[in-house]
């Protein structure tokens, strides 16, 4: 029986320096991966890796946010914070997948979309908005897995799909706990309180019906046994892909829209 962790303890695990990143899992989950670069407008964003590979013998499109595993890699990958061209590259590859009827596997791990001058000049908000719109209509199955950090719009920008999984110690939030603490609690040291209040753990989000499944991690976290974690991810993805593949595309799209349509809770006054 596992000890239950506080939301803040989970965040520390999700950000653990040894925590496996997308590139750790990539060769464990897929064969013959080929990376395709560039958004065809401006540049290539190393914070998002995109391409095709084989999953269990079948051709799939793979999109993944990569934070980097050492100092040089982290700098190269901009700590996993994408620019607009990352979102546009991801969409280009997803459209290519749709063209050839190839399913899409998307992996989220970002503190957030990059807040910088160039990112704003090139339309960060617009790039994300277009992805949300277009992904809702793609006529192939989309499976989204949150590996570690699901940082707000930067995560959602590759996160619209038919089924959303989260690793046990990952978090997914509208704002970083630190950002929330400094804006709403007016005290950035209150990040642990903000983390609890925001309900950002896989367990909380599953209860709120915002995600579909939690992938278990080894007892002390994914970094203590990356290949066991990869096995758990692979098992889940295999089962889910098999289910989604069996659905006619019109059913899949209808269910995807209903799922998106039903996010939200409110009261509706009834007039007598």
């Amino acid at each position, binding site marked *: 029986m596992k000890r239950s962790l506080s939301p803040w303890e989970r965040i520390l695990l999700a950000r653990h320096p040894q925590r496996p990143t997308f590139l750790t899992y990539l060769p464990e989950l897929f064969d013959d991966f080929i990376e395709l670069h560039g958004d065809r407008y401006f540049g290539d964003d190393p914070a998002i890796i995109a391409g095709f590979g084989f999953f269990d013998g079948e051709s799939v499109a793979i999109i993944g946010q990569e934070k980097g595993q050492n100092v040089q890699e982290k700098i190269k990958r901009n700590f996993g914070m994408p620019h607009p061209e990352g979102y546009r590259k991801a969409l280009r590859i997803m459209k290519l997948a749709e063209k050839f009827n190839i399913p899409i596997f998307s992996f989220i791990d970002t503190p957030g*979309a*990059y*807040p*910088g*001058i160039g*990112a*704003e*000049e*090139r*339309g*960060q*908000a*617009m790039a*994300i*908005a*277009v992805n*949300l*719109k*277009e992904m*809702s*209509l793609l006529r192939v199955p989309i499976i989204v897995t949150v590996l570690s950090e699901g940082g*707000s*719009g930067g995560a*959602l*920008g590759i*996160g*619209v799909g038919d089924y959303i999984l989260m690793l046990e110690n990952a978090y*997914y*939030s*509208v*704002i970083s706990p630190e*950002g*929330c603490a400094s*804006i*709403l*609690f*007016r005290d950035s040291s209150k990040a642990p309180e*903000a983390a609890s*209040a*925001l*309900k*950002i753990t896989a367990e909380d*989000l599953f209860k*709120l019906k*915002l995600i579909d499944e939690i992938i278990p991690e080894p007892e002390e976290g994914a970094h203590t046994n990356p290949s066991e974690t990869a096995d758990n991810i692979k098992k889940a993805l295999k089962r889910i892909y098999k289910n989604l593949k069996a659905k006619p595309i019109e059913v899949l799209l209808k269910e*995807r*829209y209903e799922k*998106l*349509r039903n*996010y*939200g*809770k*409110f*009261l*509706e*006054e*009834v*007039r007598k």
Partner: protein
Amino acid sequence: MFMDWLNKKKESIESKKSIFNNIPDGLWVKCPQCNQIIYSKDWLENYKVCIKCGFHSQLNFYERIALLTDEGSFKETDENIISFDILGFHDTKPYSQRLMEAQLETNLKEAVITGLASIEKIPVNLIVMDFRFIGGSMGSVVGEKVTRAIERSIDMKLPLISVIASGGARMQEGLISLFQMAKTSSAIARLDKEKILYICILTHPSTAGVLASFGSLGDVIIAEPGALIGFAGPRVIEQTIKQKLPAGFQKAEFVLQHGMIDAVVERKKLKSTVALLLRLLWRKK
């Protein structure tokens, strides 16, 4: 019940005359940008735009309707959807208290009001945000009302116009608020497929989660002069890059220069510009 009281208290949409002309005598306004002292009558008659420097002050929902629509044409839709504290969220005060204070302050139930109206006699479907209501933030109710408005445009084949004024997602609703971005954007995808015209009007400020969803997915995007338009807030960017931002950064004119919007239109010409777009792209005569 508080809501009953609010329903009664909420005045009918006032005419342009009473909103922009009905001011007590002898009042003066100081322009927040150039400090010019302006006679209130001139300030209001110029739609809260400074006659000296052109500063566009924020408009509330009532003023926006008076500015943009034909007098008496606005009919609110989905006025009965209200927010509640889904997560039991408590920062410096409980979310439920924030909601009630915002309702009292604004005479509105939420940060967005939707409805049917006409603009120079062309029927339209409207989404209007009011920044005074918790920073125009998008939670479940904003997401739902926006989505229903989009679906209504599809059902009634009515062009959709949104007036954006928002700081982003409603943090107090956690990830549910983030997912409203996907919800509203997927509804826009359907509107687009049905070939219904959608015009976005970006006012100060149009940022973060609302801009990164239905707020920037218009067929045509126009902005008011000086409006802040961006994904990340200027302070967050400064802290991240550890340098001062250039003058005019993320302002409407800057965003126009970088090719992200179609036009910057001063408030005085906003209604006629929207009407012209409706005639050119929708009515085609």
